[in-house]
């Protein structure tokens, strides 16, 4: 169910009204859980069983961990993490592994290749891991609450934590210790309307006006269309795709945050103006923050982080990003994408170990250009998951050096320029936020919000899935 579909709007308004009716105030959690299950099951009802299995498993394991002490806790938490990994590997990667090892034609191979990819599996299994690990580490707060309030209460909280519909399918990845304390009775008077309004307007604008319109022009990147394009177009398309993927995902995340705000929950921001980053490290602190935080805390740190020497640090960065890449999709090209980022980060760390980071504005600006170029070229593997097609795209960059002559291609360049402008302006705004000029403009920002609202209604592109749904 898309956030910009009619069926979602009905579901949302129905849930929202029931949620705040005084008569139903003691059923708020249950109302949200039921709506979330309906939201998830809408497309593929069968897969709800997997979600329920994952929730019950993680609730049970974390409950048992909280009620035990000593060595058994460690064993149980390890088993919990392994069980989550088995679920994700089985449903997400078995097809890829079968293909890699050439078992497609066998009976089992055929079965594995035909397995459906449950929506949001990468998100809800990771949340299961955070729950198990947080309870084990005692980050949950007072674990004794579990035994006092009983398993039923914990199960219902876990159901809401994992299935809460604003974030269920494409994040942000929540952390148990940040979400559970928020599960309390909510009041209509407690809604932070302005915050929700800002998040929803900017989110929908980025998704339906910017991303959905850009996709109508960046489709030329698909194989074999790109073979007819000139270098100019190939570069502009790539730039447009970089803007599209940001507005698509950041838009989704903002909508998720806005919806959660309306239900009285505060989710952490997932994006923080990533394209102004002047280093790859900074980029990953600003892009898909919930995933990079997860990878840092649950993978990079356990691997030793930067505490085991320089070489080991480079290796850890590399491995973390390789696995982070694979998390995005069941294709080796995603691993290559992650590896490329791992390489960028390791090289950057190596440079920083011997050369101090320059504070000269020009050097920082060039660093920003370098990071944006590296990140943008790496997105090519998202658009063209077949590695050979991506290589062919790069070859065409140098083979077709010319300017476009056809009107359609010139129109694509013109449209990409126009629809990318809001993303550029969004980032420039961040750079100017300290300036006096910006403070003056901020006073009339309602004009801008009025304009964004107008464009959401009259200039939306054709509906499309969120790019991150596939992960």
């Amino acid at each position: 169910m898309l956030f910009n579909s009619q069926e979602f709007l009905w579901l949302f308004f129905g849930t929202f009204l029931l949620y705040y009716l005084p008569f139903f105030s003691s059923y708020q959690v249950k109302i949200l859980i039921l709506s979330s299950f309906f939201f998830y099951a809408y497309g593929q009802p069968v897969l709800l069983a997997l979600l329920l299995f994952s929730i019950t498993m993680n609730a049970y394991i974390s409950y048992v961990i909280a009620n035990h002490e000593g060595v058994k806790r460690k064993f149980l938490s390890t088993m919990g993490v392994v069980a989550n990994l088995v679920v994700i590997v089985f449903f997400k990667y078995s097809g890829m592994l079968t293909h890699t090892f050439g078992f497609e034609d066998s009976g089992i191979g055929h079965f594995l290749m035909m397995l459906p990819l449950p929506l949001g599996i990468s998100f809800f299994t990771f949340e299961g891991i955070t729950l198990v690990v947080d309870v084990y580490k005692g980050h949950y707060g007072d674990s004794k609450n579990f035994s006092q309030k009983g398993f039923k209460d914990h199960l219902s909280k876990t159901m809401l934590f994992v299935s809460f519909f604003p974030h269920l399918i494409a994040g942000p990845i929540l952390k148990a210790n940040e979400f559970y304390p928020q599960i309390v009775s909510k009041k209509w008077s407690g809604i932070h309307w302005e915050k929700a309004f800002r998040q929803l307007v900017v989110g929908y604008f980025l998704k339906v006006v910017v991303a959905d319109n850009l996709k109508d022009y960046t489709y030329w990147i698909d194989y074999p269309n790109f073979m007819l394009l000139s270098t100019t177009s190939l570069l502009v398309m790539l730039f447009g795709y970089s803007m599209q993927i940001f507005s698509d995902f950041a838009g989704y995340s903002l909508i998720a945050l806005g919806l959660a705000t309306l239900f009285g929950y505060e989710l952490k921001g997932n994006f923080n103006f990533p394209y102004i980053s002047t280093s790859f490290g900074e980029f990953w602190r600003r892009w898909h923050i919930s995933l990079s935080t997860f990878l840092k805390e649950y993978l990079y740190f356990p691997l030793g982080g930067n505490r085991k020497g320089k070489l080991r640090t480079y290796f850890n960065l590399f491995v973390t990003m390789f696995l982070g890449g694979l998390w995005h999709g069941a294709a080796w090209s995603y691993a290559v994408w992650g590896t490329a980022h791992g390489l960028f980060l390791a090289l950057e760390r190596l440079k920083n170990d011997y050369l101090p980071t320059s504070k000269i504005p020009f050097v920082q600006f060039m660093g920003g250009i370098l990071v944006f170029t590296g990140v943008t070229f790496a997105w090519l593997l998202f658009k063209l998951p077949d590695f050979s097609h991506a290589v062919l795209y790069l070859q065409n960059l140098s083979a077709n050096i010319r300017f476009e002559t056809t009107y359609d291609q010139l129109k694509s360049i013109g449209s990409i320029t126009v629809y990318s402008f809001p993303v550029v302006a969004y980032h420039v705004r961040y750079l100017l936020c300290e300036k006096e000029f910006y403070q003056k403009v901020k006073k009339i920002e309602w004009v801008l919000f009025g304009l964004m609202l107008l464009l959401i209604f009259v200039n939306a592109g054709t509906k499309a899935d969120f790019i991150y749904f596939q992960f």
Partner: protein
Amino acid sequence: MIKKSLIAFFLFFLLLEGFLRKDLLNDEWLRSGQNNWSINILNSQNYLYKYDLAHFNCMIGSSISARFNIVKEMFPPEIFMLPFNGLSVHDGLNILYRKERLPDTLFVETNVLDRPANAEFASTIGSNKWEEKLKYYVSSLREAHGPLDLASQVTTSAIIVFRNKFGFLGGDLPNKAAMDMVREIEVEKQNQERKKQSQDKTFTHKANDLENEFWSQMDNLHQKGVVIVLFNMPVDCRNEKSETYYNNLYAKAKSKGFLVFDRVHCQDYATTDGTHLSGKEIERYAHFFLAQRAKLNGSAVLN
């Protein structure tokens, strides 16, 4: 802040609606769809909300007959072209029923009867009567009226001026080898899709259901006084359905009182990819089409 934003929104909205109603913004400056999906949507909305002749005819079909749009100027204005790229006659029929008036004559391309209507397309045009009514009365809600597309047109014009001024940037069209390769890949994809469909028993079953639905729709329109004319585009030699299939189809149409254009063989016409007529050939076939129409007009059976 929310109140002020909403007031600004309503003011902008009224301003845009005013501009559109007074025809101060030329349609061609606004969204000129580039990909097939956008073109189909714009075409449908033009048919539903703008096309308003006292007597009119309509053509429905797939991308095969959508090639007629290349030579649109050859057709009289009373024939509205409603064949859709990537879709089929079933989508066209859905659009026909949304307009309050039915056409006097309906030209139906019969090459693709086994492709179901696209639900997403139908919902984009309007998923319920209310949405359709709203789009009918409020021009700015139609997909064809995006203000940012006006900005795109201006930017594109600026790029063209820039390119023309700095002639050294002007280059060649994509080289022929690349174009041939892309075409071959597309043909191969289509062939694989067809192969998959022919092996799929449920597909054959669905295709039969779709054909039955097609006939019942044609009967319905015929009963409502629409003159039905079937025609078959001369393409798809490699995957052409058997002669018997078309003979049966046309015999059935005649028995129901529908009209049919003479069939011409695909070997007599050149295509770009096996399925779509080339620019010159679509012009030649358009002459043939109009001659057939004139023949029927001469016998006074067409409106």
